C-alpha cells in the first residue's frame, strides 16, 4: 500500500471507503502496481477480499504482498481472502475434453460459444456472500484484469454484463457495504475496438478512475509514467461532475512515489 496515493485519493488507510467502483486503466505501460496497492490496502483495513485473478498466479500476489507488508497466505487461511485462480480454470477449460467435468468449470464459456460468464458470477457470489445471498460486512471484489476475458474470446457484451451483475452485488450505491476494483487495458497507439468499448462501459460506471499512461515523450528510467485520477460525482448535481488530478510516478521495489508533473528528483 502506498501511503502517498491514499492521501491523494482521500482514502483513509484504516477505514477504506465503501461503495466505490474503482477503475484502473493503463495505456502504453503497466498499471498492475495499483492492483497490489488496493489489495494490500483493503486486506490491512480488515475487509473481506475476493480476488478474481485472471492474469497472475497466487504466488505472484503473495510475493508482492509480502513486500508491501501483507501476508496473503495467512489471510487466505483465515478466510479473509478468497482467491479465484483464473489461470488454472483457463488451463482446465483448455485441456479437458467436452465430457469430463466441464459443468464445474467457471470458465466453460471459453470452450462453448453459447455459454456465458454466469458460472463465474455464481462462483464469485458464493465467495463474497453469506448464505442469504447478501454481503456480510465490508467486502471487496478485485478483478485483475478484465481485458484478459476479451482476449480469451468473450464478447464485450458478456464481459460488461458480468461486471454489471458484480457491481449490483457489490456496490449499487455509495452507501453499500462492498466495493469493487478492476483493471482494463486501453492502449492509445493501437485501435482495439473491443478494448475501448469495454473501457468506456467501465469508465461510465466508475466512481474513481485512475488512468495510468506512459510518458508521451517516451521511455524514462526515472519517471515511469503518469496517473490521472478522476473523481466522478454522481450524487450531488450542484457540484462539478468530475474532479481531476494528474501526477507522475516512479515504481520502486517496495513503494511507488508520486509527484507533481515535472518535479521528479531526477529532473530537479
Amino acid at each position, binding site marked *: 500500500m502506498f501511503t502517498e496515493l491514499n492521501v491523494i485519493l482521500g482514502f483513509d488507510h484504516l477505514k477504506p471507503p465503501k461503495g466505490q467502483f474503482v477503475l484502473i486503466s493503463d495505456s502504453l505501460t503497466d498499471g498492475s502496481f495499483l492492483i497490489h496497492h488496493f489489495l494490500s490496502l483493503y486486506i490491512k483495513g480488515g475487509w473481506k477480499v475476493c480476488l478474481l485473478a485472471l492474469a497472475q498466479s497466487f504466488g505472484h500476489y503473495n510475493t508482492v504482498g509480502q*513486500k508491501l507488508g501483507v501476508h496473503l497466505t495467512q489471510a487466505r487461511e483465515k478466510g479473509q481472502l478468497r482467491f479465484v485462480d483464473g489461470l488454472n480454470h483457463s488451463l482446465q477449460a*483448455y485441456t479437458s475434453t467436452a465430457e469430463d467435468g466441464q459443468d464445474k468449470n467457471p470458465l466453460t464459456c471459453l470452450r462453448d460459444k453459447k455459454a456465458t460468464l454466469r458460472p463465474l458470477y455464481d462462483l464469485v457470489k458464493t465467495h463474497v456472500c453469506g448464505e442469504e445471498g447478501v454481503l456480510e460486512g465490508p467486502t471487496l471484489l478485485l478483478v485483475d484484469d478484465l481485458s484478459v476475458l476479451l482476449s480469451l474470446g468473450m464478447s464485450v457484451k458478456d464481459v460488461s454484463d458480468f461486471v454489471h451483475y458484480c457491481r449490483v452485488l457489490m456496490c449499487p450505491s455509495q452507501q453499500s457495504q462492498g466495493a469493487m476494483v478492476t483493471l482494463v487495458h486501453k492502449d492509445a497507439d493501437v485501435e482495439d475496438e473491443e478494448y475501448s468499448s469495454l473501457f468506456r462501459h467501465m469508465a461510465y460506471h466508475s466512481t474513481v478512475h485512475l488512468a495510468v499512461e506512459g510518458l508521451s515523450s517516451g521511455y524514462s528510467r526515472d519517471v515511469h509514467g503518469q496517473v490521472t485520477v478522476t473523481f466522478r460525482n454522481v450524487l450531488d448535481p450542484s457540484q462539478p461532475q468530475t474532479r481531476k488530478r494528474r501526477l507522475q510516478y516512479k515504481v520502486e521495489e517496495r513503494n511507488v512515489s508520486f509527484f507533481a508533473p515535472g518535479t521528479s528528483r531526477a529532473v530537479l
Partner: protein
Amino acid sequence: MAASMGRGRGGVTSFQKKARAKTLQIPGTRPSSQGNQLLVSTGVPSLDHIIGGGVVVGTVMLVEEDSFGSYARLLMKYFMAEGIMTHHPLLLSSAELHPKQLLSDLPAPVSDDIGKAALNQEEVSLEKNVQKEATMKIAWRYQKLRTEQPELGAFSQFGHYYDLSKTMSSEMRDTAPTRLFYLQDELPLEKQGVWTSITNPAYIKLLQSIQDVVKEGQFDLSVPQPKDVPRTVLRIGLHSLGSPLWGEQDSGSSHDSSLPHFLHALRAVLRTSLAACLITIPTHLFEDMAFTRRLEKLCDSVIRLESFAGSEKEQNPAYKDYHGLLYIKQLSQANSLLSYMPDCNDFAFKLRRKKFAVEKLHLPPELQDSQQREQDDPVAALKTPSASCFNPSVKSKLDF
C-alpha cells in the same frame, strides 16, 4: 533449547543469522539482481544483460520475428545451444522446419571457454580491480557507464560464448534429453482442419505435449517431487508459433482466440513448473495491431526484432554498423512490483561472422564531413592568413 545446544558446542553463541530463503541450486541458472527469481541465459550474453540478466524461470519470453525470420531463428538456436551446454532438457516445436534440422545447426561453443574461465578467474578479477581504481581524468562522465559486454568467461556456468562459423558436434548434442514436436508428425494434415471445439487442435496438441514433458521430467512444482533427483530447468522453444502453418487465419480484423488462449494456458503451466519458454511469433504477418498487442500482454517479456534487410534503413549511413534494431516492449514482472528497467530503450543488433551481439545504438563518428569546414583543413588554414597579410584591402584592423 537452542541456547543449551549452543553451550554444548563449547561456548559458541546460539545466535544464528537468519538465513535467507535458499534459492534452488541448479546448474546454468542464477538468481536475479532483485533476488527471489531464478534466471536462465538466452545464450547471448549481451541480450541477457539488457533484459535484466536472462529469462525468468516460470515465464514466457516472446520474440517478435523480423521480416525474414532469420535472426529470430538464430536466437532460438542460441537458446537451445545454451540449454545443451548447461544440461537442461529441451522441448522444441516447429511447424516449418523440422526441429531436428534446427538442432543439427546449433552454434558450437567457444571450446576453451570453460577451462580458460577457471584459470583466468583470478586474473580477470585482479584486472578488474585495477581498472576500477584508475579513475578517468578527462572523460570522467563516462566513468559511470557500464561496459555493455561482460568479459569472456566471467560466468563459467551461465551464458556461454558460441562460434557461429562452426556447428555443435552431434555427440554433444545428444547429451541433453530432447523432445521434438513437429506439427506435421504430431497432427496429420487432414486432422488439422477438423475443429471439434472452438479451439485450434494444433495448439491443444502442443500444450498437451508440454504438460506431458513437465509431468514426466518432474518439473512440476505444485506436486512434491523426490528429493534425491538433481533439479534442472526445462527449456521450451516454440519456433514460429502462429504462422499460417499452424492454421492461423488472418481475416482482417477478427482473429480467433485460440492463440491467446494457448498463451494464457501456457502461462498457467509455466507458473507452477521449473521451466523457461522462448516463443518466436511472426507478428508482422498479422494485419491487426490490436491482436499483436493482446498476444504481448499474455506473454511476460517481449522483444521485437526489426531487420534492415530489404528496408530502406539498409542504406542509411547511421545504421551502417548494424543489421537491425531491437525493441524491448515489456519485461517480466513475475514476483515483483517492478520489472527490470534498462538504461535506455535504443538497442541494435549485429551479426558478425562468429557471433550475434546486441548493443546500445550509437551513431557512427562523422568523419567525411569534417573536411568540408575550412578551418579543419590544415593546409587551407595556413594559406589564408598569409595571403591576406599583404593584401591592401584589409577590412578589419585586427587582420594583418
